[in-house]
């Protein structure tokens, strides 16, 4: 049961989006987030929506998957919408009931906020999660942040920790399942009682797990030392990231989108 949890949400594939340099994807994802918050007018939103649909189409990830990825957002959406509807200050009052008032501005703010959240989630998950493997993502982060190493930020150490955490998640889950089974075999009961009883029942799982992880960490450290690991200094990498022509085209496309949004914001009235 625990083994079925997938690591990240990577869908292997061969699309243009898969082939982009992870560094470029990280930068473009950040630009995209900024873009979404720059949009002011209705046509600008429409343009971003169109572009997002295009990204999904290019990635080869099915729209159903993308829509399903929005499911955990459901409560966040409802919550922000309600807050924006009822607690916005507006002048055009549409409806009042006791202390609550719905204004035109509040309604517009709620709708645009919801659209922004949906676009944000859909675009970043397609760019960074569905089409980028966790390892190339950490790799991209390490290399993007590598200038910070000069001012003493342990970039390599963080990247190494992330890679190893990703590596050991499945192993850890497998081990947890083994311990659960072992404790069940000795008559441990995890399913009955109230919340506090259930939390207490977890202790016989967590303690053996913790101890075994310490042992594992020590063995792993020795094995890494044996493979001549001595930190980030003087290390080379097997895969060298190089920007290709497609990376520049992707950047160009996002730049064009930025120009389009600025123009649309100028020519059309802002929604708020």
């Amino acid at each position, binding site marked *: 049961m625990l083994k079925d949890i997938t690591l990240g949400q990577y869908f292997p594939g061969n699309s243009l989006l898969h082939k982009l340099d992870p560094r470029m994807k990280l930068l473009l994802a950040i630009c995209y987030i900024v873009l979404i918050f720059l949009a002011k007018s209705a046509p600008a939103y429409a343009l971003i929506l169109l572009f997002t649909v295009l990204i999904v189409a290019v990635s080869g990830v099915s729209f159903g998957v993308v829509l399903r990825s929005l499911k955990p957002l459901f409560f966040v959406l409802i919550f922000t919408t309600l807050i924006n509807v009822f607690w916005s200050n507006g002048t055009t009052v549409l409806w009042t009931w006791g202390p609550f008032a719905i204004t035109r501005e509040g309604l517009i703010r709620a709708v645009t906020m919801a659209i922004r959240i949906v676009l944000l989630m859909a675009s970043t998950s397609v760019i960074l999660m569905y089409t980028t493997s966790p390892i190339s993502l950490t790799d991209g982060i390490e290399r993007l942040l590598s200038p910070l190493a000069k001012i003493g930020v342990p970039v390599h150490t963080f990247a190494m920790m992330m890679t190893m955490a990703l590596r050991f998640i*499945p192993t850890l889950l497998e081990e947890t399942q083994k311990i659960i089974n072992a404790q069940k075999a000795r008559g441990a009961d995890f399913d009955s009682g109230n919340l506090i009883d259930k939390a207490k029942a977890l202790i016989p799982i967590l303690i053996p797990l913790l101890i075994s992880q310490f042992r594992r960490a020590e063995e792993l450290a020795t094995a890494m030392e044996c493979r001549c690991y001595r930190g980030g200094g003087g290390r080379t990498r097997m895969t060298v990231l190089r920007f290709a022509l497609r990376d520049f085209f992707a950047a160009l496309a996002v730049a064009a989108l930025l120009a389009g949004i600025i123009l649309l914001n100028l020519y059309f009235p802002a929604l708020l």
Partner: protein
Amino acid sequence: MAEIVIKAEDISFSYESDHPADQIPVLNHLNLEIEKGSFVAVLGHNGSGKSTMAKLFNLILTPTSGNLYLFGKKFDEETVTEDEFFALRQRIGMVFQNPDNQLVATIVEEDVAFGPENLGVPPAEIRERVDAALEIVGMKEFARHSPHQLSGGQKQRIAIAGIIALRPDIIIFDESTAMLDPRGRSDVLATIEKLNREFGTTILHITHYMEEAIRADRVIVIDSGSILLDGTPAEVFSNVRTLKSVGLDVPQVTELLLEIREDGFNLPKNVLSYEEGARAIADYLNQKKGRSSR
């Protein structure tokens, strides 16, 4: 005579403890020479000091007393530079018991690349080394897999590939087959033999499986931190009583022939395989028949 790559001279070792009184020496005046290109099996029951010995040779631990010579040069912790130290470590690889605790990356080929990356090898050469190493262990088609999709034996072969990519002269296997199923064990053992026969890598194989020790050129038995027996498998396993007294098993056929021998039948002492055993008994019977018919 072949070059001596590891030489232990009167080495003792004890783990540090807060109470000097409970410092029990793990290794006790150990003397040993390992020849280049040899395949040495090290036997000993739990706590005999065999793993500690391996960790000394790999410079993870340093001896409490005695001298260690690696590749003909005395190793001195005080004067060794960091680069010399890592150069030595690169030449002596080590594969451990639990394959899961040796793999660091989420993709097989990235993991094999870890060692050469640490050495600062240029990218194109790393690629070459990784491909060659995966080829040797027969795991090339799994290059893009994630380690958790592999079986124990396959993971252990990846761990071996990770060491091969460092291009070491000696590889120490510290009970590397102990956690594997029979299939995984035989795959790993075949890989070890291949490294020794085809690539001339010196092998130190620490194990407690007799069947594996038999396949080595030389068997060393360690008990309470010093060497008890040392010789070819046939020589070592003929000491059935000594081996049994230190809690080690001997091949069943060797033991059987010894028991028959003790009942007054003249059978050889150094039989290791069933075929040899059957032949020895048949020869003995034929001989006897010939003698009685005469």
